[in-house]
């Protein structure tokens, strides 16, 4: 491990270098720029594999390695190293990011083949990967924050990639700003941590939170505050309730971007932050409960929204929100949950990337049409896409033995485990997770059947065709992952054990419903929901224009009024405040000073009357002065005598 740790910085270095060359090289790199991007990402992935094998061959207790690069910030008591922390958790992310990221890079070469700015696109993709790797490799909260915001920047650039259309630019800005709202939380958390621990290095903070350091530490209330601040940050980045509104709009970017954001980077960062800060969460049980609640709410929220969306990408986006909700829920459930959260994140990374790439493939074949009501019966025209998406669909449904089953079922099971002997929490969150699984099954099946099943609903000027190999190969690889990865890693608890150096070992508690009945119950619900969707969207006709729908449907189509709420609660008051302050600055603040000036001027005008220009008047004034002085002197002399 020690001999290869020096490679770790290159995980960030390769894609960063790639981005720099592509951005600074300008048009000169247009011809081969995309391949450079792919190469940079591949190099990172290869480096990742090398490190992974090195780590596997290291004893479990030596797998957490801090690698110091240089002193980044050292002033006024704050010492932050620029360094890398490589442990199983970050290793997992490195592999996810570099591997899936590379596949998406390859896919994009073909997907963006006709875009004149493909080079720039690859520069941003590389930047995205670099930022995400910085985030997961950071050895301090401050460095993590660098990657955290870097991801935000990259997503901003990519969502707004086609910013010659104003709405895309607005969506990009919305994503960045909402992320920043979350970032406030991270800054506040760092401030709190520094004030209490005197450091922001993981190596200092996490043991302090775990109570392993004598003399350093803070009260539960403080840790709760820290954890809630971190949660705010995670909500922003991972599009959790109430900062979820940017995710749907983020579909403005090219489809590979969506795949990258949803599967490998960005939204998973929140879950990473939660798991990374596990000791802090555990020092703050209240915060844990809040995390679970946020996860649960988002889980249902995303699922409900997903049921109503006709835009294939937005439906997938809603699904991501919901799936990340699962992970957050798991992350709030303690040590066992962490493992499943990350596990689900990993499997989700594969099948969601596959689904998005599939959706991109469909759009590619359908001239960028995204309305599922204008798809239908595409399975004949896009067989590879159909099969790979079908595997991804089964995975996300959590059907045995696909990947999703191993991770999602784990979460549901964990949710049913009572915490602190409080069975109501087990029942509540367990059922939410269960219901969420059912709804997930419904809307994902709806998506799948509306796209590939039923009759064709597209016009004659569409000529659906299968995508080129550069696009299908990554999809196939991802589909394989969706099928097999979960099973491979779940057997014998491989993955949970793998993470133990980070999350600590924890025994499974007993769920309130025994394991096998729960699996069966889940499957019954999931398959039932899928059949319902099949009947509704594959067997019966799907109207090309959306019916008015029930109240809930209409609300869900409008994202359960999330934008309306934000506009009413934040934007409108903000605009009113801005306008009134701009007016007030001119009228009151500046007006006050100008008024003061005007008063002086007016007094001057009055006094100016005395300056009539007549020498004799001036002489009279002089004489008056002399008289006054002489009089005063005389009186003073008289008095003193």
């Amino acid at each position, binding site marked *: 491990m020690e001999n290869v740790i020096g490679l770790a910085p290159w995980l960030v270095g390769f894609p960063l270098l790639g981005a720099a060359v592509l*951005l600074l090289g300008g048009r000169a790199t247009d011809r081969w720029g995309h391949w450079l991007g792919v190469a940079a990402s591949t190099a990172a992935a290869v480096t990742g594999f090398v490190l992974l094998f090195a780590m596997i061959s290291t004893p479990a207790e030596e797998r957490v390695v801090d690698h110091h690069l*240089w*002193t*980044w*910030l*050292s*002033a*006024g*008591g*704050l010492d932050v190293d*620029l360094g890398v922390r490589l442990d199983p958790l970050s290793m997992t992310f490195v592999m996810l990011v570099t591997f899936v990221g590379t596949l998406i890079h390859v896919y994009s070469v073909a997907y963006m083949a006709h875009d004149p700015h493909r080079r720039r696109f690859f520069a941003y993709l590389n930047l995205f990967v670099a930022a995400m790797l910085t985030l997961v490799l950071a050895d301090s909260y*401050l460095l993590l*924050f*660098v*990657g*955290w*915001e*870097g991801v935000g*920047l990259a997503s*901003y650039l990519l969502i*707004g990639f086609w*910013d*010659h*259309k*104003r709405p*895309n*630019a*607005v969506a*990009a*800005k919305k994503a*960045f*700003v909402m992320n*920043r*709202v979350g*970032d*406030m939380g991270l*800054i*506040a958390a*760092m*401030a*709190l941590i*520094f*004030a209490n621990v005197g450091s922001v290095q993981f190596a200092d903070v996490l043991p302090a939170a775990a109570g392993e350091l004598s003399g350093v530490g803070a009260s539960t209330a403080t840790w709760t505050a820290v954890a809630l601040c971190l949660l705010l940050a995670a909500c922003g980045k991972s599009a959790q309730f109430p900062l979820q509104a940017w995710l749907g709009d983020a579909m403005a970017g090219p489809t590979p971007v969506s795949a990258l954001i949803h599967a490998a980077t960005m939204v998973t960062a929140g879950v990473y932050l939660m798991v990374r800060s596990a000791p802090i969460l555990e020092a703050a049980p209240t915060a844990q409960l809040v995390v679970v609640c946020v996860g649960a709410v988002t889980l249902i929220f995303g699922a409900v929204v997903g049921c109503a969306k006709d835009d294939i990408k937005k439906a997938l986006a809603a699904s991501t929100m919901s799936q990340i909700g699962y992970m957050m829920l798991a992350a709030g459930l303690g040590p066992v949950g962490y493992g499943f959260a990350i596990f689900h994140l990993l499997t989700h990374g594969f099948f969601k990337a596959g689904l998005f790439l599939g959706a991109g493939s469909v759009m590619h074949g359908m001239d960028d049409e995204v309305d599922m009501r204008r798809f239908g019966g595409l399975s004949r025209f896009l067989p590879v896409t159909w099969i790979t998406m079908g595997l991804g669909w089964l995975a996300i449904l959590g059907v045995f033995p696909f990947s999703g089953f191993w991770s999602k079922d784990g979460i549901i099971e964990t949710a049913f485990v009572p915490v602190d002997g409080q069975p109501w929490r087990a029942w509540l969150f367990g059922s939410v997770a269960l219901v969420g699984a059912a709804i997930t099954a419904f809307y994902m099946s709806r998506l799948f059947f509306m796209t590939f099943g039923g009759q064709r609903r597209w016009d004659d000027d569409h000529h659906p065709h299968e995508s080129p190999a550069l696009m299908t190969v990554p999809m196939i690889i991802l589909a394989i992952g969706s099928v097999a990865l979960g099973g491979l890693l779940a057997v014998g608890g491989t993955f949970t054990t793998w993470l133990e150096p980070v999350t600590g070992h924890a025994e499974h508690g007993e769920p309130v419903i025994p394991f096998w009945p729960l699996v069966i119950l889940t499957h019954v619900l999931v398959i039932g929901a899928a059949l319902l969707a099949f009947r509704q969207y594959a067997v019966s006709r799907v109207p090309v224009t959306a019916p008015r729908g029930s109240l809930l449907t209409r609300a869900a189509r409008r994202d359960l009024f999330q934008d309306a709420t934000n506009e009413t609660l934040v934007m409108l008051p903000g605009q009113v*405040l*801005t*306008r009134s*302050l*701009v007016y007030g*600055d001119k009228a009151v*603040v*500046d007006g*006050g*000073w100008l008024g003061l*000036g005007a008063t002086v001027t007016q007094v001057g005008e009055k006094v100016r009357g005395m300056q009539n220009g007549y020498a004799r008047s001036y002489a009279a004034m002089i004489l008056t002065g002399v008289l006054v002085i002489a009089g005063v002197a005389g009186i003073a002399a008289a008095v003193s005598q």
Partner: protein
Amino acid sequence: MFPWLTALIAWPLVAAAVTAASGRSRSGAPSPRLVALVGALVEVGLLVAAFVQFDTSRAAEHQLGQTVPWIPQIGASYAVGVDGVGLLLVALSVGLVPLVILAAWREQGGDTLRLRRYLVLILVLEAFMVAVFSARDVFLFYVLFEAMLIPAYFMIGAFGQGPQRRYAAVKFLIFSLTGGLVMLAAVIALYFQVPVDAQGQRSDQAFLTENLTGLGLDPTVERLIFLGFFLAFAIKAPLFPVHTWLPDVAENAPVGTSTLLICVLDKVGTFGMLTLCLPLFPGASQWAAPVIVVLAVISVIYGAVMAIGQDDLLRLIGYTSVSHFGFIILGIFTFVPLGVAGSGFMMLNHGLATGALFLVAGFLIARHPARSQLIADYGGLRTVTPVLAGAFLVAGLATLSLPGLATFASEIMVLIGAYGGSPVAALVAIVGVVLAAVYVLLTYQRIFTGAPAAGLETLPDLTGRERLVAAPLVVALLVLGLVPQLALTYVDAPADQSVVAVLENEGSEQ
């Protein structure tokens, strides 16, 4: 020991004189702008030499200077010397001037004579700026503080592009003078606080800062004198609610002037707070800190909200500075070493980031057929002028303190540090981070995204000269972002010393 600072102060004056004499009618004579640029670059060379001479292990001490009696009768001396913070600000002034000159290459209507006058003023201002950051004598500091107004006044009023340039120049002058005169009263009052010797005489170096430190003033006197100084610095900085001159100046002055004025000259305000107010009046600083912190936080939020609401691009940038100065002041007056160091660092970074923003905005405006400054007159320029858009975005990201750029390191230091001193203030100030994202990205969105605005479809992209202007700033922001320690070694010790001065005083009072 060679008096590096005196050389740094004197050289721009020489360059100004040569510039003033150059380009007179003879066709063979070098053009004034070339002379000015070479002069400014030689100054940069001097600066590099000064940096080499500076001993970072003694960063809290004043170095590179000299002390010569000036008016011994009133205890004034020509005493110069810089600590780490001063050196960074000197570097900022010296570094920005060649860029500003280069940026003004084709400004002032291509009129060589007019441009020559402008460049001479820039160089004179540079000398004053370097001098004011290195003054170690309060009287000298005051004189320079006021002297800077003269070139600045003309650089706004005579060379501005806005319709209200004279109004702005006069407003700037009156605000600054008001503060300056109150400060003069405080300076005089301070002189009389210096103890007299057996003959009833005061030291002929009474105005040296070290002779004014630790006088053990009467609290009331100390507070009054402190307020005199602080008012001048707050106006200069500018702090809410005495900021209103700044947007007018930003709107009407040429961008080069705004760059020097807001990015460098205004730092005198915060620099003065850090190097004069804190060490000289530790008790009063603590006494006034709660109010100042509140004003600083208001500045942060207020400046940002105002920036969001602006229609004029340069005015907007002006308001962003109000917000940033709020951060700097917040960092100084929470008396936490980390925050103070962050403020010192931020003074440098704000100059780089806002300077870049101003200069790039200047390039943008110069391209508009009507030289419009209204954001609404632009649109969709990313596709037309990608490099310009990129430069603007980087400058904007630096303004919103994106991690990886230098501004981030300083801002986070201020926020984390301020939390240690005043948690509520820090938490409120964090909101400024979000607002910064809004004003930067909103502006970028309005100017550079969407379909190109009518009449702007064929604007040329940044020329080589303009790229040469933007590149050093961007590189500096990136390098200092990745290795902030390069600058922090200069800032850390002086910041520590300032805080220690305040806290020791507190200890002695208890």
